[in-house]
């Protein structure tokens, strides 16, 4: 009888029976059967119960309606035109999305649960960071008590032994070699959901130890190794901009897949807060069984995410966007070394080098807005979370809107902003210096517009050349190879004719060099073998 589970005052035990996103999957049919009439199938099959994406959305709506008071819809989706209303002197636009939209503060942890990734939740005290992380553990089937026991609290005296376990004292005395020492591992290491509260209060040495388990899934101490298996990680920090007791080491920061900031409490919902306090029940204690994922379901969920296809045109847009940031014309002499990485390795601020580069349009070239390019790890996270977003919405394949939805949270701390870039000197863009989510959205939108303007969906000669090469070289004659080398040269000439080189054309040029080299080597082999 409910429609989307979005009623604010229904019971905590209530999970929507109705599809949370009608029409999300499957085709419309005018015939119904017993499953439609009774809501469930009685046949005892391993797949009994709602599909995983439906169950996830039920979990999402239960959390947003009953557990975390987060009446925000900042992750917007549009099914057709959406109304935009300018408000205030600055005419900031409030968008009323026409599609089902979500609160990032609940959605990103849930996507992390799906992909078993690493999510950093930042925000001031009392914003529900720890409570949200705890709920994810309960969704994985742990009791609140188990999760509280397994939660690691960062503090300046936290040692490696505190975190992972201690060697047995008897072994320490009796063992003849290190490998004879048994370690009493901490039980949290084996959990499928791991929480590290206030990770920026952990001493640097302990952070390094944490890095191994977080990144590679194993712990090593006293010559003993403990494999932790795949798990979803939730780290919290009151302030991720250096406000913790210790500076977070870069390697640890880089391993985090998404960063999500707690949105402020909407004071219009104070009555809900009061009612909850009066009832004295903690949401994590009353999570409905129907939204709890068994270990097998969690595994199945992860596999389902990996199976979501990314169509080539969508991947091409990601490539185009990611290619914008690394190129820095004045950073090197040889073409390959004209990158921001070269400047950074030389100890020079890429911003200073960029300032000398007067040839490119600082407003339209988003590459001028960052001081580094995107790492492979960042791209992997972007692809994985885009797939999870598509699955969460019950879509068959990743679309550009899925990528756009997760991109700011994945790249939040992976794409360093050049805060002194000229583009931020404009009145209408100055606020982007502070609002990283909007900044990343704006850059993605800009590159998508450029992609469309250049007609790259239909006219992508470098992509065509790469696809031709990917078909293989077997049986290719010398004449054909020479023709392809000539074609590669012609494409490079056409890039040269554009005079200005941008990030994505830098990638294209190097791709053509790659093709030229592969064809040249093959031609040499042909000559040798004949």
């Amino acid at each position, binding site marked *: 009888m409910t429609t989307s589970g979005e009623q604010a005052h229904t*019971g905590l035990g*209530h999970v929507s029976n109705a599809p949370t996103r009608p029409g999300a999957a499957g085709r419309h049919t005018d015939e119904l059967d*017993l499953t*439609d009439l009774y809501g469930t199938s*009685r046949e005892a099959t391993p797949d009994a119960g709602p599909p995983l994406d439906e169950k996830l959305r039920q979990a999402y709506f239960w959390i947003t309606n009953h557990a975390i008071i987060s009446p925000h819809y900042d992750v917007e989706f549009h099914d057709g035109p959406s109304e935009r209303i300018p408000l205030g002197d600055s005419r900031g636009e409030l968008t009323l999305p026409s599609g089902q939209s979500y609160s990032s503060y609940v959605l990103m942890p849930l996507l992390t649960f799906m992909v078993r990734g690493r999510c950093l939740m930042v925000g001031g005290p009392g914003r529900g960071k720890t409570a949200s992380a705890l709920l994810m553990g309960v969704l994985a089937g742990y009791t609140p008590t188990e999760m509280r026991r397994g939660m690691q609290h960062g503090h300046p005296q936290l040692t490696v032994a505190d975190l992972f376990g201690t060697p047995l004292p008897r072994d320490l005395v009796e063992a003849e070699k290190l490998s004879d020492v048994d370690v009493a591992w901490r039980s949290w290491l084996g959990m499928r959901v791991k929480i590290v509260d206030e990770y920026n209060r952990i001493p640097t040495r302990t952070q390094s130890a944490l890095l191994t388990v977080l990144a590679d899934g194993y712990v090593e101490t006293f010559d003993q190794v403990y494999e932790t298996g795949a798990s979803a990680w939730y780290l919290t920090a009151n302030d991720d901009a250096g406000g913790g007791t210790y500076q977070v080491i870069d390697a640890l920061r880089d391993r985090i897949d998404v960063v999500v900031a707690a949105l402020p409490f909407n004071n219009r919902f104070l009555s809900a807060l009061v009612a909850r306090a009066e009832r004295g029940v903690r949401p994590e204690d009353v999570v409905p069984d129907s939204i709890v994922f068994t270990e097998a379901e969690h595994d199945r969920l992860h596999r389902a995410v990996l199976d979501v296809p990314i169509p080539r045109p969508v991947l091409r847009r990601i490539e185009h966007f990611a290619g914008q940031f690394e190129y820095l014309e004045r950073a090197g002499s040889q073409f390959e070394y004209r990158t921001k990485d070269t400047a950074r390795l030389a100890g020079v601020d890429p911003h200073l080098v960029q300032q000398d580069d007067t040839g490119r349009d600082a407003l339209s070239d988003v590459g001028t807005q960052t001081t580094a390019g995107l790492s492979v790890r960042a791209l992997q996270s972007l692809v994985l979370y885009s797939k999870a977003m598509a699955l969460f919405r019950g879509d068959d394949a990743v679309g550009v809107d899925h990528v756009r939805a997760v991109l700011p949270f994945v790249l939040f701390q992976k794409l360093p902003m050049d805060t002194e870039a000229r583009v931020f000197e404009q009145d209408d863009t100055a606020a982007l210096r502070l609002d990283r989510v909007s900044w990343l959205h704006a850059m993605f939108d800009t590159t998508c517009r450029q992609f469309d303007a250049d007609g790259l969906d239909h006219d992508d000669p470098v992509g065509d050349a790469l696809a031709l090469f990917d078909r293989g070289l077997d049986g290719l004659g010398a004449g054909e190879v020479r023709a392809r080398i000539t074609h590669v040269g012609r494409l490079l000439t056409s890039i040269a004719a554009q005079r200005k080189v941008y990030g994505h054309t830098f990638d294209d040029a190097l791709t053509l060099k790659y093709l030229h080299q592969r064809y040249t080597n093959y031609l040499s082999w042909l000559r040798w073998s004949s």
Partner: protein
Amino acid sequence: MSTYAVGPGGAAEPAPLWAAALRRVSGTLARDLDVARAGGAADRALAEGLRAVGPGFDRLVARQGGAGPAVAQPVVDRWATHWARSVVALVGAGRFGEGSVSRWVLEWVVPALRLDLRTVTPLVIDDLVTAAAQVSGRADATHWARGIEAGLAAWPSGVPLTDDRVREVGAVSAWRAGHVRLRSAARSLVPNLPDAVADAVLRVEPGQDVRDLLARNAEVPCAWGGPVTERPIGAFRGFGGAWLLPPVVTGGDGHRWSVVSGQTRWTVLTDAFGEAVLPDESEPDSDAAGPAPRQAWWDRYGDDVTGAVRAGGVVLVSRRSSHRLLLVADGGATP
């Protein structure tokens, strides 16, 4: 639902079996009550809901064995636990208010059924609550409940009654009550039911054979043991229908019809028991014919007919001046 309705005094009826069972199982209900309270359910509403279903529970249990105690206490307790859990969950979800479909099912529909509590599990309560919500608004819910009641009353004593059989009876009864979208599913289930049950659920008149009726209904979906009755179908959106502009019939097979209203395509399902108007979300067929040119035989249905299709022993007619289609028996006009 009116035939089942009673005044609020019904809740005050004594229910000693229910009260005793609740006392025995109260420990297992603690978490359910906590969850409902945490979600904002008032203690008074929970108590009132639990009191209201007591008389029905007693009627069901008392009917089990005639003179002696036919069902063991653990069975009664299992039913009481589930019954109470359903009430608590529905109160928590705001679905147990006075006059709600869920409350009607728990107070009146389930207690009226001849269920053997030893062979049927309490999960049928959830099934019937869910199904009632599906049937309500799409078919006559009272007829649906009456059909299940009649079907189970006719259930032969030698054939075990299980949850699945109750679900089947419920589906067939929903079709008979007018839920036309269950037509295929229900028709395939009828042969599984004992004859007496099928007769009772489908309200087969004495002297008629249900198999003959089903066979005839397959040929003429809008007929059931008699001539096709003329009836209007659909309505203007302002009056609760689906259409903004007068619909035009473009095709059909006697059960499933294609209709266009303005730029939107619709599917209309009709049979002897009900009808449904649904948006047609299938990909448009580029070869599909649009509205047919006016034909001479349409004149018998008026001078403003915009479309008429003969199929399955009936004619569906659309008119320029009406937001309603007209379903009439096929008089044998020459197309």
